[in-house]
């Protein structure tokens, strides 16, 4: 078996494990699911100073007041 073949097989096994863990993590029911979720969460959380997704517009969003949305929909707000 060539070194390239070995490398592809190794990468394929790793990718399968990634997907299996992502599936369990997404289910998040059994203790094993939750361990997978914990590992994925840890592995995918960047350091705050490296977190390119932080954005005040998103992070500070508090949503809307339901009564205000009702009034808006009825055209009662400007």
């Amino acid at each position, binding site marked *: 078996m060539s070194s390239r073949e070995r490398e*592809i097989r190794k*990468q*394929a096994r*790793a*990718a*399968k494990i*990634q*997907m*299996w863990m*992502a*599936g369990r*993590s*997404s*289910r*998040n*029911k059994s203790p094993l699911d939750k361990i997978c*979720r914990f590992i*994925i*969460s840890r592995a*995918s*959380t*960047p350091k*705050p*100073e*490296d*977190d*390119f*997704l*932080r*954005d*005040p*517009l*998103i*992070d*500070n*969003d*508090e*949503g*809307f*007041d*339901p*009564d205000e*949305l*009702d009034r*808006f*929909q*009825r*055209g009662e707000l400007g």
Partner: protein
Amino acid sequence: MPAPVPFDPQEVVDAKYKERKLRPGVTAKRTICTACDIQCSVVSEVKNGRVVRVRSSDNPIFRDNICMKGIISPKGLANPNRIMHPMKRVGERGSGQWERVSWEDAFEDIGARLKATIAEHGPEAWAVSTSQWNTGTDHGLGRRLMNHVGSPNWTSGVALCAGNTGAVNKFTYGWFPIGDFQNTKCIVLMGHNPRRHSWTPMYTWIRQAQARGAKLIVTDPRRSSSAERADIWLPLKVGSDAAMMFGWLKVIIDEELYDKDFVANWTIGFEELKERVNEYPLERVAKLTGCDPEMIAKAARMYATEGPAIIPWTPITDMQRNSTSGIRLQSILRSICGYVDVPGGEHLQGFNPDIINESEIEMHHVLADEQKSKQLGSDQHPAFTYRAQEKFCGPMKKVWGQEYSNIATGSYMTPPSSLFRAMAGEGPYPVKAFFFLGNNPMMSYANMNLIIKAMMNQDLIVAHEQFMTPSAQLADYVLPADSWLERPMMMDSMGWMSTVRTSEKSMEPPGECRSTFEFWKLLAGALDRPEVVPWETLEDFYDYRLEKLGMGWEEFVATTDVHFKTPEFRKYLKTGFATPSGKVELKSSILEELGFDPLPYFREDPPIDPEYPLKLFTGVREDGFFQTGHRHIEEMRKRHPEPVAFVSPGTAAKYELNEDEWIEVENELAAVSMKVAIKDAMPDDLVRVPHGWWKPEMEQGAGKLSGALKYADALLCRDDEDYLDREQGIPHLKGVACRILKSAPLNTDAEAQAEPVLEK
């Protein structure tokens, strides 16, 4: 050059994204945002029966996949101008005179009139423009009904955005791959610029890959934010992407950087390809692209040697006169470098075997061959029509288990310009009934004035919409559409990827808004074909699609964020590829059979007309909007109050343009009004025009169309043969000749003069 850090550290400390405790009276629903076509998994928070907040998913694999369009949705969809009940036109077409009717009365009349059209002109006289991307719960039911009725004339915006790429990728290796961003070592962005608020998950994957050490190569005339972060940026001439790829191939083949084993064992046509590539020495490529030959060679070497590498889907090569060749050249690069269906490369996923997929639901086999042969445009531009795509039925069955594979809904389509010419009375037969759902066709394709003429020539137009778009203003019926917050949804990526995701219904639809599922069910009944859509409810339909899993929709949605198929790589070792030869066809046997050049080629631009010395680049999205949508949302309009054309400082100086000045961008077809923004990231002589501008607050109706006749880029997009891709018949949006004229200040309604924040 690395991009500057885009946040203040204190804002990170203050960030609330980890706080997931629900406020009193609030319930959470796991949903899929369809504010754009990326479809991020998010959470809707519901209070008093109404969605009050949309936030990022709690699932770490979807974390932070949310943008400004998602968080504004609760307010955007509560807009007082939302269409709440069915409306029937009572005045002249486009007069703006409507009367309120019931859904039942509407479909009784629509059914009778559509049957009369079919009786007089044949079923091919009925056309539909939509996509599963925008309508959520169509799931192929529209195609299914059309196939049973006998019409092949379905088109979609995916004809020039992703769907066509899916169809053309099949010519090389029989499927449309998805890049393995998680394991790749090199990413090539061809003109695409995913960013924090546009194509957010793709932006995330790219940044994560770069953080892991993956290389980034960007080819883009503009110095985009992705270009600023790239290891190599090639500022090529607009529309010269295919020429650039010939340059890469020349280097890779000459220097023997390709995967010799794969090429020898799994491809056909390598020698012919080599001959074609030899027509493109680097000096010629440098002239065609305007790039330094050394940098071209360096990028080619990086792609071929730093792999596994990916060339993710890009809209840029979807919209060029060389689109088919450009997409084929991407496929060929992936193939000869050995990146197809390997980890870190381009994964051919196939259908998820656990559900009934949308290609099966569409039932293309029931449409008679005679009707398929009538598909408009298939004689001249067959690449994604039945004429070409049916040639894959045998190989598809052998490799992927079923004959029809409507990946990303882009196969078996009618080329849009051919359809609109027939609708306008300039085709081989009349098309007299036109339906569009979640789609603003007038502004979504090239040659808008032709589309208006086509719509004015119809006997029946039916729109299913949330808002009164310029296209809806010309309809006979406007039927109120629900939204992603108001319905459940099962998302299978239209067969492109094998993952299945779920979305819970968060709230009841307002007024009389109904889903696309209900639209098609009512129409099937009105056409006396209720058996075509036999399910009582959308949930029943999902139960049917999930039969093989042995669980119903209720259980599936309650327990599943995402359902994966276990990934398999190099499946071709067992099955071969889904092409006629079973191999990667560097020289396409199907294109050859259809009478086209079986190898990629490059058509140079027509000679420069001194009257129109500039190039126009359009189809560009702005962060606050998706396509022609979201113009009614105050918060988004504050970010983008007016349509803005970008020019370089050099172009501004040459034409004496000032920042914020109103200009007209003009070509042989039309002129549109824009404000000027001078950007040093733009190259000289290129004008970037934003896509899809109209203003809901402006006067409606024929002759006005809420400002679409003043601002829409589709007015400028040509569809004459020089500006169409030969094989697909899709228009060239990346480098149309134009000029700039100064115009008098307009009386505009812009509430605020916000700084445009586009593409950063």
